[in-house]
């Protein structure tokens, strides 16, 4: 999987540093993110008041773990139950195959226009670009997705795709691309976008959506949304194609309410969303609406590879709530585009290397201070900091070698430095004389220490080390005792 499709503003994970530099230098972006994330953090905090959050998280984690433990079985069960319900199931090894499957479904119906609900996996496989090449227009119907599409951008957040834009910027985009009035009136803008989209819903040949939970027990596809566009996407066009990663399956219907509660509260602080759709079949005889055909595309795209590894597997628990991003001090400073990947922030920094390999995503596992905020808020308790460390091991060639591109960041210079550190720290006498010499030479400490001192003064070794102070202290004590 390569970077972004042509024509779209290009960000790549290879350029994390430059993109971070640009984002940090852009006060507008910084302010937009900070404000938005502060709001989301406080909403999440408030929404868990009436719940025993820890118990619920424990439950959520267990539901996901239980599902993953039986993933192959559950996927077969899901397929059988979906088929029995009249949903056609397709398996895609990678993004390309998934795109081809969707395109072929479109072509078999002579489709020219596709309307889409929000789906991160379709971003991951670059579905829009693929369909466009085949002469099929794909229009995003989620308001945020619609805006970034108009602006020829990619989403910068998995829940709020246009969170990097503020009201004025949105007004400008809508004015530019669709001829609406310039305004700060959010209602006006929403109404205008809705009107534009409504016409397209009616005209679309195929609706494409994502899936939040796929229930194996019943063959039900659950879809969480706020705008009603998901419902339109999956009911108005004559054909509905749901696309999902294979990890989204859960065992039974009973698993859904706790996960749903965790998802909406963690994401936007809502107790429930405006819409919660459960799709279990195409239109039946005598029914007045709903698509005549429903397809489910199960996308692997590197996931079964992760599945083989008992540590990395935890990544697949993710329910895509975005809380880890909202709370990440790096993400809130640099924004989602800086990561250059479909999934940004902490979850992106562990998931993207799986999907794209470590060569493409070099800096991402280090783009965290390991402060642990992500792991603390994750509703399904993914140990994100531990996984970042695991990927760092992989990238310097001291992991198990299970991630594509393992060892890519191993450089002679770094290895020598850490070997040197190891040698010093395991030769205590040398260590002691080294630190004490550093103290004696403290006047010679450079005032500039690379980028550190661009923002802070340089730390100076103390005149005497703790080792020496303790020695002195101990001998003065024995002295006193002797007297």
């Amino acid at each position, binding site marked *: 999987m390569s970077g972004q499709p042509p024509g779209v503003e290009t960000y790549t994970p290879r350029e994390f540093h430059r993109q971070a530099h640009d984002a940090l230098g852009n006060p507008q972006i910084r302010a937009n993110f900070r404000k938005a994330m502060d709001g989301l953090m406080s909403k999440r905090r408030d929404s868990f008041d009436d719940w025993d959050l820890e118990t619920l998280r424990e439950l959520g984690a267990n539901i996901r773990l239980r599902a993953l433990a039986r993933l192959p079985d559950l996927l077969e069960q899901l397929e059988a139950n979906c088929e029995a319900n009249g949903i056609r199931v397709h398996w895609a090894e990678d993004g390309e195959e998934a795109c081809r499957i969707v395109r072929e479904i479109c072509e078999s119906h002579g489709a020219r226009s596709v309307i889409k609900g929000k789906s991160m996996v379709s971003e991951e496989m670059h579905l829009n670009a693929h369909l466009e090449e085949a002469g099929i227009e794909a229009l995003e119907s989620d308001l945020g997705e619609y805006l970034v599409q108009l602006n020829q951008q990619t989403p910068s957040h998995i829940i709020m795709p246009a969170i990097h834009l503020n009201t004025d910027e949105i007004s400008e985009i809508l004015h530019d691309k669709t001829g609406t009035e310039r305004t700060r009136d959010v209602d006006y803008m929403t109404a205008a976008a809705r009107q534009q989209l409504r016409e397209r819903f009616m005209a679309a040949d195929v609706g494409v959506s994502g899936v939040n939970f796929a229930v194996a027990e019943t063959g039900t596809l659950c879809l969480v949304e706020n705008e009603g566009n998901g419902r339109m996407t999956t009911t108005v066009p004559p054909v509905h194609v749901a696309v999902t990663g294979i990890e989204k399956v859960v065992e039974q219907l009973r698993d859904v309410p706790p996960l749903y509660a965790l998802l909406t509260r963690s994401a936007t602080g809502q107790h429930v969303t405006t819409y919660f759709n459960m799709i279990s079949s195409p239109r039946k005889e005598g029914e007045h609406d709903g698509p005549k055909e429903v397809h489910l595309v199960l996308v692997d795209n590197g996931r079964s590879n992760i599945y083989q590894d008992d540590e990395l597997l935890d990544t697949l628990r993710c329910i895509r709530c975005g809380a880890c991003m909202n709370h990440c001090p790096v993400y809130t400073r640099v924004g989602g585009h800086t990561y250059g990947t479909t999934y940004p922030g902490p979850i992106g920094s562990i998931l993207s290397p799986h999907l794209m390999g470590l060569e493409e995503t070099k800096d991402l596992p280090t783009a965290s201070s390991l402060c642990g905020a992500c792991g603390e808020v994750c509703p399904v308790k993914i140990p994100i900091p531990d996984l970042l*460390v695991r990927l760092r091991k992989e990238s310097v060639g001291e992991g198990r070698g299970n991630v594509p591109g393992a060892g890519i960041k191993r450089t002679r210079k770094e290895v020598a430095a850490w070997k040197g550190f190891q040698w010093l720290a395991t030769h205590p006498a040398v260590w002691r004389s080294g630190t004490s010499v550093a103290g004696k030479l403290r006047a010679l400490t450079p005032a500039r220490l690379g980028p550190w001192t661009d923002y802070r003064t340089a730390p100076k070794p103390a005149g005497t080390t703790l080792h020496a102070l303790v020695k002195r202290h101990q001998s003065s004590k024995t002295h006193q005792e002797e007297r």
Partner: protein
Amino acid sequence: MTAVKLYPPRPDKVYFFGTCLIDLLYPEAGMDAIRLLEREGIEVLFPEDQTCCGQPAYTSGYQLEARAVAAAQLDLFPDPWPIVVPSGSCGGMMRTHYPQLFADTDLEAKAEEVAGRVFELTEFLIHVCHLDLEDRGEPEKVAMHTSCSARREMGLAETGPALLAKLGQVELVEQARAAECCGFGGTFAVRHPEVSAAMVEDKTQAIEASGAKRFVTSDCGCMMNIGGRFEKLNKPIQGEHIASYLWRRTS
């Protein structure tokens, strides 16, 4: 959230692990911590061969190197005394990550045993020593910066403030986003200097806006980062290790 931890009764002796940053940069903080413990009637053993817990190599992915360094520390605490560490990040490394680091190796059991005896200083003073303090200092407004490792890895967001609350003349002021990382993160500050700078910039602004004249912390990494930023800006706000602060005000 960490599980409920049961604390041992106050011991006669403790081991003290000073950490490499304290050893090299802030030795007085280490000495003050030792003095606090000794004042409680506890004998402090300082294994001379201690160097570094190995965390910098560990978080950089250099697992083998970290293991070698950590293995050398495991040998330093042969008797069953608690191991007190005046740093949340080194404490977190030893308590949480040693068992991970040595999983499936010959040293696994030993690492678990040592990890079980590790206490961060403020945690030890509050929960094991049940420390009482008599404040002899001037009235002062202070901000507390609890490191992310102390807060999340060790679950110790409350112990530092609880100690400060025992100082009658000290007013602990609130700062915006107190739980947010200061941007140090060990090698993170070196690998991503600009992002780290943006983080420490917000942190110093929040501390300044809180009206505090000083900030205290139990992690020298954060102290070096936040304090260094204040110094670069020529701001009068100074950082102090909580051990030194407590000792200075009560001796």
